[in-house]
């Protein structure tokens, strides 16, 4: 019964989305105040309805109601509670409901927190959100109904893929979706601006917090996915340039460019039509990501064609959303007023360079991701575009970006003085040279790529610190006063430095892990000891253990350094009987400086166990760097000047006049 209520709520949400997507648009065009006022109410109602549907689905999973097809197919009564919870979105139908729910959440947030937006503008934003919701609710209800019943109801479910029974993966999709779907607000703001034919500084101020929130969630979502891959896949890799990963990385790159170009619109009232285009492209890439993952086109282009209902539906949605917005862009953007001029050597110039590089990098990733699919779809040879391709195309494009970053973030608006900026970056340059020398002398990395990575990471990290120090005046005034000045800096200044520091830390972590890994693959008997990067590792024992819904073979490794015990680490190979599937759990011991990463494999005929032992330096820095970037987004969101409800005189007065 509850499931039927949920189904009903979802159908009602579809109707509300239709009204939300049409009436306010008409009302705003015809100046019909009641229809304009309808938009926020409709957005809140839609949120309530989708929330009800989501709760109904959650209830079915928690109560193990196997008469529901998706519960039967993805759950089991013995499954731990956390995974009954995350099982709601651990499948196609449920994840769509989550997608729509987050979309409605953002719509409701705009309705609630966008009090200072001019009424007609807000109505148009919410109407565009309503149209997106309409498309995805229709997709959910007509091709992937989450509330489909089974009659008769089976006694127990088929279970959730054990690889998905993991805390990291339980929260990866919601974070990722918050990011993907969050960019819909930037898209809706861009569409509303195109309809009104006007983009100005206040537009950029409104759109920035939403973009920032989405970007932050996407950053953390990608990091969470990468972390999950690192500790489950069993060989210490963290990024594979896999199409699914690229699908989330492309909107991130475009969204990063959007964040930077929106600053130019806000501060200098220029780059407007480019920023609008970026907002459209960012969400389009998020939709493309949804399409790639949800249509099955990645498993096989042909699988997509054999079961076309879903794939064609998402493809149509993608075509309408992207094609429609680009058509509107082609029609309305030429009317947007161009902004003021600036010299190439200036903050605007630096941000433009950032945008060009990020856009080009996004394009190469897009090409590398779609090319094999296109070739396959057209009957060409099967190829695999993997890490070598992306390392050879994406990384070189990042080099100028990282080299220019510290100087670009310090240079003055309008007309900058590059030599002055460079002279103030002397400390960071000296520090970078020191790190480079240390890396060349101490670390095992002799590869040029590794050294370049260390230099780039150090340059970005130290350059950001240097920038903060210069801003606070540490080189001009007494330290105590500079310290006070530092504390008085606006949060947005801190957040920029923090985000760039996070990027530097991330690059150092990635470089160290990718080039400094020590690996030993061997067969060990219980009691045997080997050395790994200065540690003595003993396979202490291998025994059978019983988990809540699995049985496992558990290997215990004792680690010593110079005779002193460091830790013990357990790696398990679990077998899930319900799904009849094995899953390997590596054993990991992490510190700030290194991870010890052990994997127990299969026994050989002589009673020894295949094991893989890794020493991965600075792994934590990767997660720490991503965390810093996310934190930077949060700090920026709490900046009073950027708060969504901050007074916006220019726009407000215009709305009042209208």
């Amino acid at each position, binding site marked *: 019964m509850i499931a039927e209520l949920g189904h009903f709520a979802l159908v009602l949400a579809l109707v509300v989305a239709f009204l939300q997507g049409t009436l306010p648009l008409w009302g705003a065009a015809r100046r019909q105040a009641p229809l304009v006022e309808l938009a926020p109410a409709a957005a809140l109602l839609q949120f309530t309805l989708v929330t009800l549907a989501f709760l109904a689905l959650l209830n079915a999973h928690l109560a193990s109601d196997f008469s529901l097809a998706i519960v039967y197919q993805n759950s089991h009564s013995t499954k731990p509670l956390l995974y009954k919870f995350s099982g709601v979105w651990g499948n196609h139908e449920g994840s769509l409901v989550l997608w729509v729910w987050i979309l409605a959440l953002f719509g409701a947030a705009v309705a609630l927190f966008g009090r200072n937006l001019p009424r007609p503008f807000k109505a148009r934003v919410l109407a565009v959100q309503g149209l997106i919701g309409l498309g995805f609710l229709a997709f959910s209800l007509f091709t992937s109904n989450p509330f489909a019943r089974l009659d008769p109801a089976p006694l127990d479910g088929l279970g959730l893929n054990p690889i998905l029974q993991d805390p990291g993966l339980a929260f990866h999709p919601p974070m990722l979706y918050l990011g993907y779907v969050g960019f819909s607000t930037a898209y809706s703001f861009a569409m509303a601006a195109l309809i009104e034919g006007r983009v100005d500084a206040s537009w950029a101020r409104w759109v920035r917090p939403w973009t920032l929130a989405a970007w932050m969630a996407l950053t953390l979502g990608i990091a969470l996915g990468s972390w999950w891959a690192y500790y489950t896949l069993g060989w210490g890799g963290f990024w594979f340039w896999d199409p699914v990963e690229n699908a989330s990385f492309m909107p991130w790159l475009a969204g990063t460019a959007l964040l930077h170009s929106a600053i130019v619109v806000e501060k200098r009232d220029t780059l407007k039509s480019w920023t609008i285009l970026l907002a459209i492209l960012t969400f389009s890439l998020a939709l493309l990501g949804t399409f790639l993952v949800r249509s099955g086109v990645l498993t096989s282009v042909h699988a997509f064609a054999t079961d076309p209902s879903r794939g064609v539906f998402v493809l149509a949605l993608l*075509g309408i959303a992207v094609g429609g917005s680009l058509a509107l862009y082609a029609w309305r953007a030429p009317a947007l007023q161009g902004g003021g001029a600036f010299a190439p050597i200036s903050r605007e110039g630096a941000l433009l360079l950032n945008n060009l590089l990020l856009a080009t990098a996004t394009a190469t990733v897009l090409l590398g991701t779609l090319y094999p699919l296109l070739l396959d779809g057209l009957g060409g040879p099967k190829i695999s575009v993997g890490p070598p391709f992306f390392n050879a195309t994406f990384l070189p494009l990042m080099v100028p970006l990282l080299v220019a970053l510290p100087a670009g973030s310090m240079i003055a608006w309008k007309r900058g003085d590059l030599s002055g900026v460079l002279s103030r970056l002397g400390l960071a340059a000296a520090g970078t040279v020191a790190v480079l020398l240390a890396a060349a002398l101490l670390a095992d990395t002799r590869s040029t790529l590794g050294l370049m990575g260390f230099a780039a990471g150090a340059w970005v990290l130290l350059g950001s610190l240097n920038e903060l120090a210069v801003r606070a005046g540490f080189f001009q005034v007494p330290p105590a006063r500079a310290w006070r000045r530092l504390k008085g800096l606006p949060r947005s200044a801190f957040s920029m430095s923090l985000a760039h520091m996070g990027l530097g830390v991330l690059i150092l972590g990635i470089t160290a892990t990718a080039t400094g890994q020590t690996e030993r693959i061997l067969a060990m008997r219980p009691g045997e000891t080997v050395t790994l990067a200065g540690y003595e590792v003993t396979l202490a024992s291998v025994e059978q253990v019983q988990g809540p819904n699995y049985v496992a073979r558990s290997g215990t490794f004792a680690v010593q350094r110079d005779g002193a015990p460091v830790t013990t680490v357990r790696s398990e190979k679990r077998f899930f009987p319900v799904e*009849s599937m094995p899953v390997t759990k590596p054993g990991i011991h992490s510190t700030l400086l290194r991870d010890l990463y052990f994997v127990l494999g299969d026994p050989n005929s002589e009673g020894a166990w295949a094991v893989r032992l890794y020493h991965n330096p600075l792994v934590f820095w990767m997660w720490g760097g991503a965390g810093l970037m996310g934190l930077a987004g949060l700090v920026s969101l709490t900046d009073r000047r950027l708060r969504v409800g901050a007074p916006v005189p220019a726009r407000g007065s215009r709305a009042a006049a209208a």
Partner: protein
Amino acid sequence: MSAPAADRAGRRRLLFALPLLAFVGVGAFLALGLGRDPSQLPSALVGREAPAFALPPLEGRDDHGLSRADLGGGRPMLVNFWASWCVPCRVEHPILDRLARDGVTIQGVNHKDMPDKARAFLDELGDPYELVGSDRQGRVSIDWGVYGVPETYLLDGQGRILYRHVGPLQERDLKKLLPMLEEAR
């Protein structure tokens, strides 16, 4: 508006239409590529009598094997080609078990498999088959035109093939299969 100004405005319009043109171009290319995919399987056997064959039983299973004579006989049934090493077979097996419990007759052809492994598979996941023929060389599969396992055929009471399903049976396939089975009765 003077001519060069109009010209410039036209160029400007074209510039802003570029993203749309690029998108439409790529979209058309993709649609052409995907549109001509010949994915639906033609089955030469649909509508015809099942081919003649006789297979020995699966060692250790209590039946006489499977032959053409066991098909038909007034009962509509499913013939399922499977193997223990086939992962998708594992996936569809619970559905076959449920169908068997609901009274659907299912005959199995064990394709290129070791008898002990096949038995272990049935012990572990349940045995939905009335009869199982062991096709260790895969000859019968070739006669039926089986591309790979699992594959399932729906036969009417005269042993005529009504429908062929390629790949693991899933919940949503039953919506199509069950009414056909009902109709064949």
